[in-house]
């Protein structure tokens, strides 16, 4: 067991994947010599060569389309998209090809492609470097979409993602890249890639979070304790398919749901979770599920991002609301 940053944990996970499967190839911009702008692939080209870790020309659609061709040929490509905001040029290849090919060919052709995307805000970046585009992918049938919240999951899940025979979009919470934590390389009975995890047990409210906000959610649970509130925090991990059974079980217990993500609210993943939970446990729900998300505006300038991103206070305010306590919206009507 070693102490690693989340970025280093992914790096070691990729290293293991490259060691264990000769068909694994990494493609991306600046991932070789530079080791990636976040150094997530640091040292991998040096150790595995330019044939396994390929710096590509600057074109995301091509990187994705070439990955499709490599998968056709039997390779297991791992694509790095440098920042969340740069995945859109590749959107057509992801939605119309990567997601559909296995279905299109009746199972004849597999697309074991992993698309790594550093995502989310909170780093004071310029435009297009702080987005949370996960909902575009979770609405796309044929894709598995996951994210991680701690170094151990980062390491284990990237290896599971690369080993998975389905395409996996792997969202990396960039503002947590430098978060340190213990990492065991080979966990026996690791949680499957498509399962959520209850990270804090509680009885009053179920707080569902993923990626960068899991830490914030844990802090909220802690803060709520002083207040005599018991919050159960679920780290979703798999954004599609959703492990709704785990969420459902928690809500049946608490009767209250708060979902949070950085992505804009309108049509965000929170809507699917709130709607699905309501469908499954309408009777048990004591209050309407509450969503704490980015507002329905484009990601703002760095100096405004604190007024866009969910934070501890907004989570606690939402908890108050779902508990029927006084909150910012008490008696609010527009």
């Amino acid at each position, binding site marked *: 067991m070693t102490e690693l940053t989340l970025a280093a944990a992914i790096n070691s996970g990729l290293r293991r994947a490259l060691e264990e499967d000769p068909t694994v*190839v990494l493609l991306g911009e600046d991932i070789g010599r530079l080791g990636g702008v976040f150094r997530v692939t640091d040292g991998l080209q040096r150790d595995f060569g330019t*044939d396994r870790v390929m710096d*590509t*020309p600057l*074109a995301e*659609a*091509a990187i*994705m*389309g*070439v*990955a*499709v*061709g*490599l*998968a*056709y*040929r*039997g*390779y297991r490509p791992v694509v790095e998209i440098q920042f969340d905001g740069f995945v859109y*040029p590749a959107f*057509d*290849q992801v939605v*119309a*090809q990567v997601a559909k*090919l*296995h*279905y*299109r*060919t*009746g*199972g*004849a*052709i*597999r697309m074991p492609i992993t698309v790594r995307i550093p995502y989310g805000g909170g780093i004071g970046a310029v435009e297009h470097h702080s987005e949370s585009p996960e909902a575009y992918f979770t609405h796309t*049938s*044929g894709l*598995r979409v996951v994210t991680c919240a701690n170094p151990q999951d980062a390491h284990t899940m990237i290896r599971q993602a690369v080993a998975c*025979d*389905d395409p996996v979009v792997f969202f990396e919470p960039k503002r947590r890249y430098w978060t340190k934590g213990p990492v065991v390389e080979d966990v026996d009975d690791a949680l499957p890639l*498509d399962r959520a995890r209850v990270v804090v047990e509680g009885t009053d409210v179920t707080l569902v979070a993923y990626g960068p906000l899991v830490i914030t959610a844990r802090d909220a649970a802690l803060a709520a304790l002083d207040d005599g509130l018991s919050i159960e925090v679920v780290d979703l991990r798999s954004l599609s*398919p*959703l492990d*709704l*059974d785990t969420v459902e079980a928690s809500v049946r217990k608490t009767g209250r749901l708060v979902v949070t993500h950085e992505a804009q609210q309108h049509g965000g993943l929170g809507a699917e979770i709130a709607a699905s939970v309501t469908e499954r446990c309408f009777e048990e729900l004591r209050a309407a599920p509450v969503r704490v998300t980015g507002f329905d505006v484009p990601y703002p300038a760095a100096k405004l991002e604190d007024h866009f991103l969910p934070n501890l206070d907004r989570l606690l305010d939402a908890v108050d609301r779902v508990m029927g306590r006084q909150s910012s919206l008490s008696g609010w009507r527009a």
Partner: protein
Amino acid sequence: MLRSDVSPSRALPGSRDQRRTAAQNRPPVPATRTTPPDDDLPVPRPEGLLQLISAEGVRRSDPVLDAWVADVDDEQLADLYEDMVVVRRFDTEATALQRQGQLGLWPPLLGQEASQIGSARALRPDDFVFTSYRENGVAYCRGVTPTDLVRVWRGTALSGWDPREVGMATPQVIIGAQTLHATGYAIGCLKDGVDSAVVAYFGDGATSQGDVNEAMVFAASFTAPVIFFCQNNQWAISEPVGLQAKRPIADRAPGFGIPSLRVDGNDVLAVMAATRIALDRARRGDGPTFIEAVTYRMGPHTTSDDPTRYADPEVRAQWAAKDPIQRVERLLRGRGALSDERAAAIASHADDFATAMREGCLGLPAPEPLSVFDNVFTTPTPWLERQRSQYAAYLAMFEDAPVEGEVR
């Protein structure tokens, strides 16, 4: 022959410049170096084309090309002729099936037989092909069965065959997307250290798509053994090639560091020679080659298209005179290499294939309702299994005779 530059012969006199210089006295700009005037004919000029069999069926010798098809004797030429006859026959049959409501849609390849047969017959079984929707002649050469050819167009499946079994990917509907897949597959061949090659088929319209240009960037950068085979059939649905490109399509590739060949797409022999040159380069590690096969779409874009709205019948007539099959027939007949018996045998073989296609088409079973949930992922997911069982329960209601008011 391999044009790693844009042949100066096609550079145009800057007549416009000279015209104007007088008017506005401005500093000189070398006259011979400007772009083609807008009024310049977009359709490539025949002079620029590689050809071995003229439209009249005369075998033209070519110092370079000849050597590449030296092994193609009359017998083999007759085989290529047979391929083209069969392809045209089943293409016509498929159109008929669509008109009769048996197919949802069909994209005829009429007129493009030589481009498809000449290139596809140059391939090895271990080569791999990524095509668009119109390359049914290529599919035929790869060994796709008559029934598999129409599966997708009948709407019973999204793919007609297992790509790995025939060495040909499921035809691509998203214009240009397959050129990137071909490039990736070719890079895979390099990694595997095999000398297999990959061919990406696409149209003149596709050359405007970012994907196709990015594919050339990547193919050149990684010296990928891929052939960019562009069938310039002069049309992208209703849009003439001149809207897509102000210069012959073949002029595009050299600037990417990819040599290109411009060949008479209605000359099966020249197409084969060009493809063999490109394949040889690919197998020898010299990287990608671009081939523009200049041909003409004699039919509608698809069976739902109405070319009378945009295409000039006279132009079509001129191209009819350059028919790819007729010229080979003339050549063979002239040499006494095509007897009436052989011709008849070929015709009936073509009929048999067409009949098999029709019967196979009509015999295609409708897919199982619940199969709509199959193969989304390689393993079932609880989420989808839930939807499947719910829908199964829903369908079940209709079986056990529904009671009015409960279920309709």
